[in-house]
């Protein structure tokens, strides 16, 4: 028999638990809100609202002077170039690391345990990839802006390092997760590891590898626009400059161009991946 409330109706037995978890969530989240100084109402204080609205008001109409548009086009192209060059360099890092760290291609691991030395080497390589990708590209960019100066070079290096680790790790995962029978048979019949890669492992996983690379290139375009804000060149750097000048109409144009760029990269990458699949 469920207990009855004052009106003689059965009580919902789950109610107490529901109240408890609701309260627990508030108790847990409140300190986080305080810690992050989450004060939405400051947005709407009169002293803050006025400049915000004026800046947003400036957005319209977006600036569409020929000279400015040419500049934006050039910077957009630079953003794409940074992303592409970064990913290309990342491939140079990632492919050897992935190949060297993949267990499937180890002859000594073919029967039982891998030899000690190669096993240690593979572990070290994996750690290196973890280090490379655990530092966000923004941080790498900040570092390299100090080293090589303002401009696209820092952005390219930043993307290359983070994406090199990321691609290397994911490539290795893709190569290990697929069907390894073809590769294993080649190794068992005396092929060299690199031969087994090109005749077994690569054709087995080529689609997935390419598809992931194209997707990462799309991520790199978005990321290279952000890198501009720390001075690593491209559209982001222009946007940062315009924002510092409170030039809303310029910012609006670049935001629109940026959205178009992301949409275009997304469409190209989706099309490429579909064509491959």
């Amino acid at each position, binding site marked *: 028999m469920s207990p009855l409330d004052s009106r003689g109706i059965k009580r919902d037995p789950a109610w107490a638990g529901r109240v408890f978890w609701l309260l627990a969530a508030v108790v847990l989240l409140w300190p986080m809100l305080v810690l992050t100084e989450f004060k939405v109402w400051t947005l709407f204080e009169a002293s803050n609202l006025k400049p915000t609205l004026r800046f947003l008001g400036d957005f319209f109409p977006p600036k569409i002077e020929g000279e400015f548009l040419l500049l934006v086009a050039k910077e957009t192209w630079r953003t794409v170039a940074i992303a592409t060059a970064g990913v290309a360099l990342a491939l140079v890092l990632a492919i050897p690391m992935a190949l060297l760290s993949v267990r499937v291609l180890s002859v000594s691991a073919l029967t039982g345990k891998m030899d000690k030395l190669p096993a240690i080497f593979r572990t070290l390589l994996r750690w290196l990839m973890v280090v490379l*990708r655990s530092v966000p590209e923004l941080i790498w960019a900040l570092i390299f802006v100090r080293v090589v100066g303002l401009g696209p070079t820092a952005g390219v290096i930043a993307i290359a390092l983070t994406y090199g680790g990321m691609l290397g790790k994911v490539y290795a995962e893709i190569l290990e997760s697929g069907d390894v029978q073809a590769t294993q048979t080649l190794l068992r019949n005396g092929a060299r590891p690199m031969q087994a890669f090109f*005749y077994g492992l690569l054709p087995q996983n080529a689609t997935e590898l390419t598809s992931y690379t194209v997707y990462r290139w799309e991520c790199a375009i978005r990321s290279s626009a952000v890198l501009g804000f720390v001075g690593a060149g491209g559209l982001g750097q222009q946007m940062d400059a315009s924002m510092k000048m409170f030039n809303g109409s310029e910012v609006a144009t670049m935001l629109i161009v940026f959205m178009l760029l992301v949409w275009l990269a997304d469409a190209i990458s989706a099309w490429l991946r579909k064509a491959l699949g």
Partner: protein
Amino acid sequence: MPDAVRHLSFVVQSGEHVAIIGPSGAGKTTLLQLIACALKPSTGTLRLADVDPWGLSVHDLQKLRGTLFLAPQVPPLPPRQRVVTAVLAGRLPQMGLWASLRSLFYPAYIDQADAALARFDLSEKLFDRVDRLSGGERQRVGLARILASSAQLLLVDEPLSALDPSRSEQAIKTLTDIATERNATLIATLHHVEMALKSFPRIIGMRDGQLAFDLPAAQVSPQHLQALYAQNLHELDGSASAPHHAPDAPPLPVVMHCR
């Protein structure tokens, strides 16, 4: 887990043709992999041409593996590879790395691949992709790879599992012919007992990981077979075993993470 193969000892002369028969789970595949140096025996010794392969260095062992050919039951072909490449992969141990890469750009030895396929009636599939082939065609492509290799020890696991009776007969004949032509040793596991007795001079019967008999084909009596397949009699008359591999599942979608 009990050992898949135990208390088992036999000698195969170079150039001999041997069929291994026995019910499913008897350890036939494991035995083949042991001979191919694909598995290391936990106890006991294996000698290939009077050499203990497990006493060799990794490099020399890999070189030794290049002189034998293990054809697994499920043909080891990447779905997007072309048949010509899949067949020529049998030559890899004899090719340098550079030569094998160049062969990916423009296949070297197209004539050899073509001739190999012709012996299995697959000439017209030379430039098709593997995933366009039927299960039986794939199995024959896997066997045609033997012709591209120059191995002297051929270890073939259930070469007929996906073939119909007439194709089976042709495949076995081609296999034994190849072995005879190059004076190679041929050891095959077979579900198809009748075919084994007909085409192989020597039969090894295996049951529960142990040797049941090792006799010339002419001396294998129905009693031997009855005893070998006791409790599995349906496998004795089931001339062609059901293919062990399911049709290819569609590839899983790639999981994308923004890491």
